[in-house]
């Protein structure tokens, strides 16, 4: 998993929360390491992510009531805090994704045609 070669990007501010929510929605309850592993897998090494940076995102989401954490045991018999998306979280995710889509469409349009 350590980085190598290919060009890597930082996330745009605010998008990490969205990605975490999405990951949890797809994968079901997951611990921080699992979330990080999944994001790196999907990003296919195009993303530079210190796993520790997930924690602020997790605490933000939990405080908003969009995810909920609970201590459980992993298959390898380790304890870990599993986060699950809540119903308000699912709703918020739908809204946020729609918003993200709209704004990224807009930015795309501006960048490809607008300035010309």
């Amino acid at each position, binding site marked *: 998993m*350590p980085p190598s070669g290919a060009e890597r990007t930082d996330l745009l501010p605010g998008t990490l929360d969205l990605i975490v929510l999405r990951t949890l929605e797809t994968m079901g309850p997951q611990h921080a*390491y699992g979330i990080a592993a999944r994001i790196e897998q999907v990003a296919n090494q195009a993303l530079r992510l210190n796993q*520790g*940076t997930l924690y602020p995102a997790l605490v933000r989401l939990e405080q908003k009531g969009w995810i909920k954490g609970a201590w459980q045991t992993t298959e390898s018999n380790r304890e*870990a805090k599993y986060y699950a998306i809540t119903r308000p979280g699912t709703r918020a995710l739908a809204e946020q994704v729609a918003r993200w889509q709209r704004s990224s469409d807009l930015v795309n349009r501006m960048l490809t045609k607008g300035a010309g």
Partner: protein
Amino acid sequence: MGGLRRVFRRLINAIHPYREEADLEREIASHLRLLEDEYRRRGLSAEDAYRAARVAFGGIDQARELHRDARAFRWLDDARRDAAYAVRILRRHRAATCAAVLSLALGVGLNAAVFSVVDWVLVRPLPYPAPHELVRVFTTGPGAGGRPGTLSQALIHDDFVAFGNAGAFRASAAFTTATRVLASAGIDPAHVVLARVSGDLFATLGVSPAAGRGFNSEELAAGEPVVVLAHHLWQRTFSGDPAIVGRTVTIDGAPHRVVGIMPPRRGYPADAEVWKPLTADERADGDRELHMVARLQREASVARASAEIATLARRGPNGTRDAWAESLQRTDVSDVSAALTVLFGAAMLTLLISCVNVAALVGARGDDRASEMAIRGALGATRARLLEQLLFESLLLALAGGVFGLLVGRWALAALVALAPVSLPRLEDIAIDGRILGIGLAATLLTGLAVGLAPGLRLSRATGTTAVRGHRVTSPSRARRAFVLAQVAIAVILTAGAGLLTRSLQHLIATDHGFAADELVSGPLSLRGSFDGDSGKLFGELIEAARTVPGVANAAVSMGLPTQVIGLRAPVQLLGEVDPLPSPATLRPITPGYFETAGIPVVAGRAFSALDTKPAPRVAIVNTAFVRELLGGRAAVGLRLTRPSIAAPTSIVGVVGNVTPAGEADRPALYVPVEQQPIGGGQLLVRTHGDPRAILAALTNRLRTAAPNLAMDRVRPLADTLEAHRAMTRFATQVTATFAALALLLSIVGVYGLTASDVGARWQEIAVRLALGASKGRAFWTVIRPCAIVLTIGMGLGVLGALWAAPALGSLLHGVGPTDVWALGLAPIVLGTIGAIAAALAARRVLQADPAATLRSE
């Protein structure tokens, strides 16, 4: 929705971080283990897996910080940690903390108490709508009947009517107060203060009765016999019975219908208990005894009103008078504002001393902590953070001091109110309320800022490398010496002030009244409306009744009390001379036995006897003021006088001493027997054996039995009346003395602390000197000297300050000048002596030192 919830959670986390912090640690550990598991599964060694896991995770501390930022508010979290640290530091320096908190608590507490009184009495607007519009109207010029040589600030009814038309006034009313007897079925007749009014007083004030109504215009115009009762009188005399409205009471025997009851503590003047309209006859009476209250038009000023009525006064029938308006509130407090200002000054000075003490303590600890601050600075703490830390400590100190201070304040206020003279306006209102709490809190926080900021700035600046090198005990800073110097100076000022007031009070207590006041009881005998027979006979019966009470030595009746030198003025002429004597004498009708009872010495001739009856030749007794001022020192006994109203000549049969209540000068007086000059009422004077309070109840009962119709509710020790004269001075003295004692104590603590620090800082040097053969005495003097200098300069400045401030005591000083040598000299001597002892105590370890041991320990 989620946003709000998050703010709330962050707040909770900032205040109470431990749970989340522990959870995070656990989570990070679990995360790292899972990462290590993964790397080991991929074939790394345990060691490599450990390292790789931490690389993948990124900065752990950074994650913690980010987590902290996200889960709480960083500034709040910082603040909480500063506070926790401050608490730890303050607890470590327990003695200094206690001293500082105690200092502040006393300073803040006493201030809060005095401030409450000042605020309620001087500052708060009167409890009427738009109170700033209310004014009192005064006139000055020739007094009663336009006679020259008399001054009166009161008005006649014509003045009131003229001034009432002034354009600056929206409404106005006039009143005059007198003591009358109120009676009703089922209650003991009692003396009340009756205010007779002209014009709608209640409408002018903007207050209406709580029950019933005020006077309507017909009642006011016709002067009908209707009354409004004050709330406390209604409560006290009629047990708050609402059915009293509409019923009839008698005032001096005349029936009056109760139409209303005022709300609690409302109505003017404040001592009035019953209000009734002035009758037409009373209005026509030309005596200057009315007081006028007016409400200004919204846009009018006091100055404009004054100018307008001054013009009206000059245009009036007796045009030599002047007139002016003055704010009602200022008028009411004019007697006490000086005293209260002095008290407030004393309180502020004491608070200043306690602040200085706290600043010195915080500063002293600051000296010790220079190296700690330097290290923290070197490790990257910003100056703002260091300052914040120090401010937190002093604010915490101030807050603790403030909280205890308000407890002290509650207690001190209760004591203050109990000590205060009953004549203090709005005394019963005074209490600590939200406004005073708010101001107290603000003052406390300001104090905390002030005492923390100065040393804080200095320390946070000292983050250079020098202080890091080693822990150095530094000498007390120059600022701290200045603090102690200021304390000493302030303490001297307060002590001198207390000394002056004490001397003044002593003077008042030791004053020669011209009569022996201690074992006297007096009670007014108001006969009007309650007695219809021969008043002389009644007086005789009452005197006899009083004499039968065990503990009574003598009794007499007179028209006035010996505490009043003013009375009826009678022009007199010597028989056979053409011109009357240069000025009238004060007429004082008395019964035989009066001089003996009052304790007024007969210096020549004789006193009156039972033989001086109505048909007997007319006799009179004069006082020494009469002899000196009207007779030019001639022998008085045997002279014969004539008076315009009395045909037969009067022989002077004796001369008595002057009465000088509270040091007042007596007027020329003509004492005459009541048998020959009947009076419609007067004062019963009773001399007791021992404490008059002991027989008060028995005496009152006996008198009630002898004359059931008379009001006997004001039979009381005469000393109480005299005490009222000096109540304000006594109050100011007691309170200032308390402040002075506190100031003394606090400044002594300052002196002790300063010397102790000096000794600590120079311990090594002293040890070297002692080892090199210096005498202990010399070494002792070396450490004492800086303190002695501070004490001396402080005392000098204090005396100068006292000389400058003492004239402010002005009206409170009796028989002692503001530059009294005793008071001004004693203060620095007392302070200097105690200060020197404190310094010596702090330095005594020098005398006990073993230089060898000291040097070895270094």
